[in-house]
């Protein structure tokens, strides 16, 4: 039975279902329960925005572990435990904090399988918040997805809605490779119909939330919503836009993108990341390389500028790609 659920609750439900199903799933992170060692309530926070609320009551402190503020140590411990048979889901509150613990992920987790000649597996999920719009400034707002997709051995997921978040997180937990699961903080409240039961969404399968004939917009995360908004505006101008939601960035579903571009002949790639070596740049390069003949116009990337994320709302609103910028790019392409 499907209920209308927020993305935040869908993520909580995915963790709950997998912890119930598989006793080797443990979760850890800073204040993911909260109140540890204090005299007030247990589960005082349930994560900084309440995403993991209620889980310690169901699974206990052995499986829902609050951590000291030592990302290098506990993220590394999650990686090590994964290599030794557990399925840890470690929360890195804001994925911006990746800088503190990245070695354990990109030199360790990502490389075990290959370096050890195929003899290791590291089924760890690192999940945390990404993206702007919270006025959280330069160190709590970034879209660092290109850093992760650059690394062979990591899988990278970034859902755009509650339904996908649940299915992709369950898949991430069951997957035997390390997964970076990117949760856009400005989508936590977004609602969708979500079945109560368990389901998975396979990696490397993009979704097409809107079909169209004239232009392909490729996006992920929050940008899917901006792309849909732009498509709505453009439909009034008789421009029929197809929106491709990547859902997973590693692996990436090039087939669906290329099929769409072969139909429309025009490509706009939207990315909240900075432009250099972005997902948008990667999509455009791949399409140009593999489907050059299908293109009727130069592909266009709409991204954040090559700057850190500014604090002040007037500038942050300019930083994050808007529906208007996307619509303008489409109009220019069709001219």
């Amino acid at each position, binding site marked *: 039975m499907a209920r209308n659920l927020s993305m935040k609750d869908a993520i909580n439900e995915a963790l709950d279902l997998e912890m119930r199903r598989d006793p080797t799933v443990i979760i850890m992170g800073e204040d993911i329960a909260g*109140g*540890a060692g204090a*005299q*007030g309530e247990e589960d005082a926070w349930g994560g900084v925005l309440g995403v993991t609320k209620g889980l310690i009551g169901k699974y206990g402190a052995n499986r829902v572990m609050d951590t000291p503020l030592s990302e290098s140590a506990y993220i590394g411990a999650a990686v090590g435990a994964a290599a030794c048979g557990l399925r840890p889901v470690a929360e890195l509150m804001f994925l911006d904090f990746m800088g503190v613990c990245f070695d354990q992920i990109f030199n360790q987790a990502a490389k075990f399988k290959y370096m050890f000649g195929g003899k290791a597996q590291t089924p760890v999920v690192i999940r945390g918040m990404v993206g702007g719009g919270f006025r959280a*400034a330069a160190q709590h707002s970034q879209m660092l997805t290109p850093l992760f997709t650059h690394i062979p051995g990591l899988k990278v997921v970034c859902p755009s809605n509650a339904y996908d978040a649940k299915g992709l997180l369950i898949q991430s937990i069951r997957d035997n490779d390390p997964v970076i699961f990117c949760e856009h903080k400005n989508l936590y409240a977004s609602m969708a119909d979500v079945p109560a039961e368990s389901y998975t969404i396979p990696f490397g399968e993009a979704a097409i939330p809107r079909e169209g004939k004239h232009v392909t917009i490729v996006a992920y995360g929050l940008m899917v919503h901006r792309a849909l908004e732009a498509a709505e505006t453009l439909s009034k101008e008789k421009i029929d836009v197809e929106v491709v939601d990547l859902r997973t960035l590693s692996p990436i579903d090039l087939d669906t993108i290329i099929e769409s571009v072969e139909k429309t002949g025009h490509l706009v790639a939207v990315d909240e990341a900075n432009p250099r070596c972005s997902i948008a740049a990667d999509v455009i390069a791949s399409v140009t390389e593999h489907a050059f003949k299908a293109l009727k116009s130069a592909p266009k990337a709409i991204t954040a500028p090559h700057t850190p994320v500014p604090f002040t709302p007037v500038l942050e609103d300019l930083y994050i790609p808007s529906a208007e910028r996307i619509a303008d790019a489409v109009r220019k392409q069709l001219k």
Partner: protein
Amino acid sequence: MSNNPFPLPKEKLLEAYTKMKTIREFEERLHVEFAKGDIPGFVHLYAGEEASGTGIMMHLEDKDRIASTHRGHGHCIAKGVEVEGMMAEIYGKVTGSCRGKGGSMHIADLSKGMMGANGILGAGAPLICGAALASKFRGDGGVGITFFGDGASNQGTVLESMNLAAVWNLPVIFVVENNGYAESTSIDYAVAVDSYIDRAAGFGIPGVTVDGTDFFAVYEAAGEIIKRAREGGGPAFLECKMVRFFGHFEGDAQTYRAKGENEENRANKDCLKIFRSKVAGAGVISEAEMNKIDDEVLARIEASVQKAKKDPLPTAKDLLTDVYVSY
């Protein structure tokens, strides 16, 4: 005028009180303004912790550097950063100390030796080792102070920096501002050693623990270790035990606290009340003199809020500037 039993002359005591009161009123006002919805983003308030930053910073000059935390407003004010620029920054205005680009979590004023509030826990410790290295290199007698909370004291960067500072004999003071909580998590859960002095000893660094609600305790302990560091004696570790009056950030329901904890803190662990009763009790500063300072501070904060609200916002061209020194 009775004898002054304190280690600072009266005008310095007045300066310290003004700083602490300015921090308090700055934070109390932000608490109110944030609730109105006028202030964007995350705001972490330093109210209750004023004696620590002020007691330490009374020993510092502009050439001395500090690295602050996410809870940085108090460190800024104690180090001499202008409240008007800070307030405008927190409101996201172009007149702010970082032209609206940084916000509460990234206020900095390098001209004052304030190397920035920081959104990354523990990030200041290596940076201040670098500041201290630069001072040592130049032989200018400058010291570096890095602040971190009880929670951030568990970051690898902090622990590595303690070793580095000891190995290189750097003029660094590691200050843990121990308010008992990291967000909602108690220090009893997250820090295994009973005493930070023991932890510091493990790195070959002398440590001292003080009551961080007592300005004079902080002032005296800090004075000794800062003097020692200036003279080439190397790093030291200072623990200030203190309380935070508000939630972790604005909007925190604080259900992790014991019942009555905040009221008890306000009643008995208020560093401003403690300071007042000491200096007034000794007859060095009168209540009336401090009340007058209170009025001046309140007026200054009020003016800074009014100005910040009226000040202009950055414009589109500001988005793309300041990424590099040269392009």
